[in-house]
């Protein structure tokens, strides 16, 4: 598995730079990417904090979220709320303000409930705050656990059991080997081509790929059987892409997909 290469703070810089670059390239998503960049910068500092913490011993998949440190997240919540109020979109900023007014017990509960959910990456704004706060920890933990998947058809993350955010094709010989990127801990795991990550469909006639000239390296990989889709970032076309960022920058493809009756496997950090 080429996945789960050790995450370093420089990788956060790479994501931040890419978000800036993408915002220039795709004005339609500039507002979203600008906010995403702020979030990344915030997460980068969080990551630097957790990176020096000692980690609990590796546990099972189910226990992954339980290993995350709630206190750190609670402690960082006010800074995030303030950031969102300053730089976030209206609705989210309003939400941040409301949470800010909640009791500390309520705040803690919001974050705790995220840890209890098995797949709490929904577009709800409460999940947004929790996700932003726990993700750096999750990434750190995931790298440390270095869970290897022998199964190239696992539809959820072998480390934290969350759904994939985006697929990435990395060069393998003349072709592109597919990996899925976890929507929570950002682990990449090998996932075979011509296979639906949601329903397991293998009939190539039902697995369409939709691409637009505007986005050379990103396309919609949709399944006609379950009607779910996942975007894929083809690094054999653009080796500079950062899958999570490019996924966000190509939001108009999501609109196209939704309008054509497909549903996304997992909403991204920006809520779509």
């Amino acid at each position, binding site marked *: 598995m080429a996945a789960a290469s050790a995450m370093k703070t420089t990788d956060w810089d790479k994501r931040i730079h890419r978000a800036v670059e993408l915002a220039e390239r795709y*004005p*339609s*998503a*500039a*507002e*979203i990417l600008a*906010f995403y960049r702020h979030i990344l910068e915030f997460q980068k500092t969080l990551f630097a904090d957790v990176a020096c913490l000692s980690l609990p011993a590796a546990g099972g998949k189910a226990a992954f979220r339980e290993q995350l440190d709630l206190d750190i997240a609670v402690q960082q919540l006010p800074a995030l709320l303030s950031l969102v109020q300053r730089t*976030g*979109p*209206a*609705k*989210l*900023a*309003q939400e941040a303000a409301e949470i800010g007014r909640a009791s500390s017990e309520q705040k803690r509960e919001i974050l705790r409930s995220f840890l209890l959910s098995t797949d709490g990456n*929904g*577009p709800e*704004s409460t999940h*947004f705050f929790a996700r932003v706060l726990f993700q750096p920890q999750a990434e750190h933990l995931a790298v440390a656990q270095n869970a290897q998947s022998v199964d*190239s058809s696992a539809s959820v993350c072998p480390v934290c059991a969350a759904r994939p955010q985006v697929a990435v094709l990395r*060069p*393998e*010989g*003349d*072709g*592109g*080997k*597919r990996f899925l990127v976890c929507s929570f801990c950002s682990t990449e795991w090998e996932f*075979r*081509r*011509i296979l639906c990550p*949601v329903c397991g469909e293998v009939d*190539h*006639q039902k*697995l*369409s*790929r*939709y*691409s*637009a*000239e*505007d986005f050379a390296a990103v396309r919609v990989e949709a399944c006609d059987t379950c*009607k*779910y889709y996942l975007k894929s970032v083809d690094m054999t076309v653009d080796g500079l892409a950062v899958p999570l960022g490019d996924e966000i920058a190509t*939001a*108009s*493809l*999501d*609109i*196209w997909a*939704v*309008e054509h009756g497909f*549903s*996304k496997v997992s*909403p991204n950090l*920006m*809520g*779509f």
Partner: protein
Amino acid sequence: MDVSRRAFFKTGMAGAVGITVFGFDARPLLAQASSLKISRSTETRSTCPYCAVSCGVIIHTIGDKAKNVTPQVIHVEGDPDHPINRGTLCPKGSSLQQDIQNERRILKPQVRRPGSDHWDDISWNQAIDEIARWTKKTRDATFMETDAKGQTVNRCESIAFTGGCTDTNEFNYLAVKTMRSMGIVRLENQARV
């Protein structure tokens, strides 16, 4: 995923008011989405038809049968998942697209009549009728039910069938079934040559 979640995600992107659930302005995105020229392609797993390493290939085809667009192969990729070739191809495999779409392909049935110095077009029906007629005539004229010792042989020695080394197992079985059933004993492929 259950239906309610699906419905929820569907609305997750852009509401009627032109903002996303988080309140981003979705109008530029909607505008871009409506101008996207989307092409649909499929990826088909296949096996290189040349040597018996059997490199996996993924054939990228564009075109939508439903929309009456003739499918076109736009790319042949070494299958990165294939354990043997791992995405690589030799110079023959790399140029497979030229084999799939090649202007030298024969595209219609033809017949060369006795004594003729050229090909004539022939319809499929006519060709198949004539071939069947030839086969029956030849078989009936030469079929041996017993040999000189009176032993049952049920064979036809006057017709031969050759081929199959670059066709599928299933085709080969149909060849065995049809030819052996006609008593044809001269059944050969590239195994010896």
